[in-house]
């Protein structure tokens, strides 16, 4: 076992291979306050990648309602249950064990192995509310709400220390040095399903037709051309942005992902305690139960929520959120100046420019020029 630096946990963790960070690390940020569970992302991925034989129940992107939803069934609770209660220090250092550290010697990763039945209900628990009794008396008057649920869109996290990769005895899984995307080599995979067992996020799936395991490919053909993944560019709510995240200490303030993750501390990794350094980051929902959110996003969740509530006062952050969803290209650098936010590609060329506040134009309902009443249909 090697000791590798995991900045999510502010400590070194055990991993079967040495630390070897990619030149750039693929990452997606999701604003959970804005997701409407329209599943457009799910379908965008499905029609692009998994409409073939053996992929009938396979959703590399899924959106589940928390706390009761889960694809596969209760995946996170079942992993948490195995791990047991663990602690964080006051300073945000993880004191508990990761799934690799907690693994029995004859396994590589502490895990639960999902069965067919677990994958069969991709949208179980949709819109189920948690919190106060439904009989009445509960009011949504204060934050957090006493009745709550939220939508959690998920892809593979292209982890820095992938559990899937660690578990594969054939070394058929690799992490690309150029962008950190984690792929299963479809020429070498023999369908042992070790990754399906080991991935704590349950994002490696078995294809019974090809008899190999398959997973989210991070839309690498698009990413190679500077274009964001299908599930990102098709997001109706414009709640997602894909880019590249730097490790702590190497963050650039003008990188949109680094800005939200490192500078503002607004976007947090989910279940960082699993120890894989997952690279999908979430802006936590401000209305949901805080204890639940702490379990999912760690001790920094309160600070992130407070930050989010004051976001409108930060013109740069405000500008950046306006850029999200405004271009299908990967924004490597952004700048906000005089009420205009601009995004630039890797070579530094401008790819998009948007006003931070749209101009409000008032006009009379009746347009004399065309002799008709105009509708403001958005």
């Amino acid at each position, binding site marked *: 076992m090697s000791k590798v630096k995991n900045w999510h946990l502010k400590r070194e963790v055990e991993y079967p291979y040495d630390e070897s960070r990619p030149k750039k690390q693929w990452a997606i940020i999701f604003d959970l306050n804005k997701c409407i569970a329209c599943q457009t992302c799910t379908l965008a991925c499905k029609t692009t990648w998994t409409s073939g034989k053996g992929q*009938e129940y396979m959703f590399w992107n899924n959106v589940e309602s928390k706390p009761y939803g889960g694809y596969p069934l209760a995946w996170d609770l079942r992993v948490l249950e195995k791990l047991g209660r663990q602690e964080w220090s006051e300073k945000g250092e993880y004191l508990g064990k990761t799934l690799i550290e907690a693994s029995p010697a004859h396994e590589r990763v502490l895990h639960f192995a999902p069965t*067919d039945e677990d994958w069969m209900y991709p949208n179980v628990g949709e819109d189920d509310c948690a919190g106060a009794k439904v009989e009445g008396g509960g009011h949504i008057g204060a934050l957090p709400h006493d009745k709550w649920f939220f939508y959690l869109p998920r892809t593979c996290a292209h982890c820095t220390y992938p559990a899937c990769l660690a578990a594969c*005895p054939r070394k058929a899984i690799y992490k690309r040095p150029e962008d950190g995307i984690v792929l299963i080599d*479809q*020429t070498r995979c*023999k369908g042992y399903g070790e990754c399906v067992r080991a991935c704590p996020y349950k994002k490696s799936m078995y294809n*019974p037709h*090809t008899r190999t395991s*398959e997973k989210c490919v991070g839309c690498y053909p698009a990413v190679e051309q500077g274009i964001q993944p299908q599930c990102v560019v098709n997001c109706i709510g414009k709640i997602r942005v894909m880019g590249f995240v730097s490790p702590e200490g190497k963050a650039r303030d003008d990188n949109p992902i680094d800005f939200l993750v490192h500078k503002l501390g607004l976007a947090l990794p989910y279940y960082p305690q699993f120890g894989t350094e997952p690279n999908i980051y979430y802006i936590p929902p401000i209305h949901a139960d805080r204890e639940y959110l702490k379990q999912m996003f760690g001790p920094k969740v309160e600070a992130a929520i407070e930050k989010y509530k004051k976001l409108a006062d930060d013109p740069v952050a405000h500008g950046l959120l306006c850029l999200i969803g405004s271009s299908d290209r990967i924004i490597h650098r952004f700048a906000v100046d005089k009420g205009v936010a601009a995004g630039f590609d890797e070579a530094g060329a401008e790819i998009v420019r948007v006003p931070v506040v749209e101009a409000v134009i008032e006009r009379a309902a009746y347009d004399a020029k065309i002799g008709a009443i105009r509708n403001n249909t958005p």
Partner: protein
Amino acid sequence: MNRTTTWLGALVLALSISTSPACSKSAPSKPEPLKTLVVSKVSADLSKPDPDAAYWKDTPEGLVKMLAQPMIAPRPETTTTETIVVQAVHDGERAAFRLRWKDADKSEAGRLGEYSDGLALEFPVKDGPTPPVMMGGQGMPVHLFHWRAQYQRDEEQGKPTVKQLYPNQSVDMYPHEYKEAPGNPSAAEAFLPAVIEGNPQAYQKVSVDEILAEGYSTSSVVVGHGATAKGAWANGEWTLVIVRPLAIPGYSSLKLGAEGNVAFAVWQGGKGEVGSRKCVTMQWTPVRIQ
């Protein structure tokens, strides 16, 4: 007398006589621990693997002790296959190995989390010092014959369709089937990465895979040289015959009058064994072809 009795003891003797008189054979006495696997010549055509052939009656049985693969995780927590009973014959061209081991359930894999029963024979590729017994080592390759119940099912009944594996599965359509002329399999499969990449796993198998390896995590399926296999499961026991050509230049060869080496691995699919989750022999067994 029933073969099973020779190693399962008196209790099973009583049981198996009452439950499986059909496979009664005059078997050699209780198999001794195998020191050297002596492969005698038989005047029979070994091109077809036959677990019930008459010549097995006169071929001595040797007992080989297995251990849960101890070196790398993931591995079985306990030894699931304690012993296998080994016999071997040759016809001047091919060698046939007959292997028996206890396995409570027959498992052929198919769905998620279902794994296949299996057995592998391992031979060093080069003469001289033997390679590390577990998957060989760098510059010291090993040549494996890997039988799986799943592969045998493929050979006998074709690769199972999704509908066969999941009879209640439903799907609106597979868009790729409409890409070109309907029913054109090349179009339908063209977007399945493992298929288009030529991964043998995604194609119909014959009973036994040939594999080369030079250490852990290096095994690769190679184009076969006509090895065949046939396993039969009854009463909680597999009886399997793997037939291989004696000489496979560039891979492994068993030479008349000379001594070689063999090692074994067994997987019990019903116990979740696959890949490195297996029971193995911890040392090479000498093989003498006479």
